């Protein structure tokens, strides 16, 4: 079984996001960038499947400008075997990325495609589902457990109000939720080793995919600030305020 994992380079999740003064975008200059946390979980899951002897090869792919090679090297240090950069401008929309990933998945004849359920920048939660639709593959999104058995994946999914378990026939798409696993840290020897692992570069043109979007961002603004209110001295004062000032308790 061959696994394809996609990874995205995003603003580090610990960084406080600031909007540019001209309200065109979020300011990414001199900001720490990292692998999207859900993508890290995807890489970890693929590597664990390989360590269990269930996968023969783990290929990681990222769509973006040259800097995303850093993210691919991180994935290689975590245990992926080989990397592919689809050299394109950063910030392509989900459908374009899905078309590129679908083409790579076909070229690689991947049996399982694992993606993060969403990236923490655009928060779209679309790409995995779109890849599955384009390839007419089944999907198991928001996975908290993946069991591979005789050409099928049994996946437990986090849904509103609880958990749902699906059995999908491979090839299939799985997207990761937070509790699927806890990603390992890359060790120094593995970081060194990752530098020598193969990293191929391709382009949307080579893949025969037209990228573009009919969606334009008109503005990006900071959210309305919520200001702190008052401190109350006692439970009695709190209840009094809730009843008589905020009037949310009768």
């Amino acid at each position, binding site marked *: 079984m061959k696994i394809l994992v996609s990874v995205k380079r995003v603003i580090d999740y610990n960084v406080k996001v600031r909007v540019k003064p001209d309200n065109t975008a979020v300011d990414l200059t001199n900001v720490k960038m990292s692998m999207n946390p859900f993508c890290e979980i995807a890489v970890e899951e693929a590597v664990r499947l390989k360590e269990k002897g269930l996968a023969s090869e783990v290929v990681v792919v990222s769509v973006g400008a040259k800097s995303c090679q850093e993210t691919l090297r991180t994935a290689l240090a975590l245990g992926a075997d080989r990397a592919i950069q689809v050299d394109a401008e950063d910030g392509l929309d989900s459908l374009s990325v899905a078309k590129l990933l679908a083409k790579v998945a076909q070229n690689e004849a991947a049996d399982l495609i694992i993606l993060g359920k969403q990236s923490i920048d655009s928060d779209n939660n679309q790409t995995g589902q779109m890849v599955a639709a384009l390839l007419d593959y089944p999907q198991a999104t928001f996975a908290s457990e993946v069991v591979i058995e005789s050409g099928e994946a049994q996946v437990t999914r986090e849904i509103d109000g609880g958990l749902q378990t699906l059995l999908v026939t491979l090839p299939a798409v799985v997207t990761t939720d937070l509790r699927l696993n806890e990603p390992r840290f890359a060790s120094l020897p593995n970081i060194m080793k990752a530098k020598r692992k193969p990293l191929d570069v391709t382009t949307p043109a080579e893949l025969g995919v037209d990228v573009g979007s009919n969606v334009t961002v008109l503005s990006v603004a900071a959210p309305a600030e919520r200001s702190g209110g008052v401190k109350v001295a006692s*439970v009695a004062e709190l209840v009094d305020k809730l009843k008589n000032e905020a009037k949310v308790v009768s």
Partner: protein
Amino acid sequence: MSVLILAEHDNKSLKPATLNTVTAALDIHSDVHVLVVGADCQAVADAACNIAGVSKVLVADNAVYEHQLAENVSKLIVEVAGEYSHILAPATTTGKNTLPRVAALLDVAQLSDVIKVEAPDTFVRPIYAGNAIATVKSNDAVKVITVRTTGFDAASSEGGNAVSEPLAHVIESNKSRFVKEQVAQSDRPELTSASVIVSGGRGMGSGENFALLDGVADKLGAAIGASRAAVDAGFVPNDLQVGQTGKTVAPDLYIAIGISGAIQHLAGMKDAKVIVAINKDEEAPIFNVADYGLVADLFDAVPELETSL
């Protein structure tokens, strides 16, 4: 131009998220249709016909749709999509699972988690976990949109008189099979639609201590929530999690107990009308967003709160 909404339901009852989505749809256009896909779901279809502002309800009622798997439901939506300028679903796990498939099959973009309709082609949506708000314009022929329900009031569930139309075409899903579902049973209101929420954090100390919140929640008719820290510590199941990676809520009253107020938690609850924080650490960031803050040991304050309500 008409708007189609994928109804959120469990085959027995229509979920309130559908009502908020109807309001979003009516902000786009006055001709709003609802699609009910399920099995033995006539009661849901009837409820959809009663929603104020809905003119037509399409019903695909067949055993193959029992668990609303994305594979065949998305194909069904694409079959009826031709008539519509907009296809909407609430941004629930079902909507998020299904609609991107629809968008890809239609070769259009999807706009996720829309919180405001500026114009029929222009929408507002949070990005970076709500730390930035984007206004986006779509020139796609069909706009596929998931709606963050807390951004819109609920349409009235009564007063409508929509015509119902069965969809006979059955699409199998043979590559994906339902195995089982574990849904937490509770007498309390659903977290995402509750008007009052009492949430506990790491400060609760243990899962057993969450029982302390029951008394307050009972008196207020509240749902119980939790921070990610409390979920990760194993105190409560993850379906209680409020935050960037959990549920986004906007109740009238949100009481945060033993919650420090990490950015990722605030992203999920800062749209509450009134926020109360009870925490013994007076430096906790939750106090920066709370309308009423009480610096106190929760193990003293919560029982006292219960008796004074």
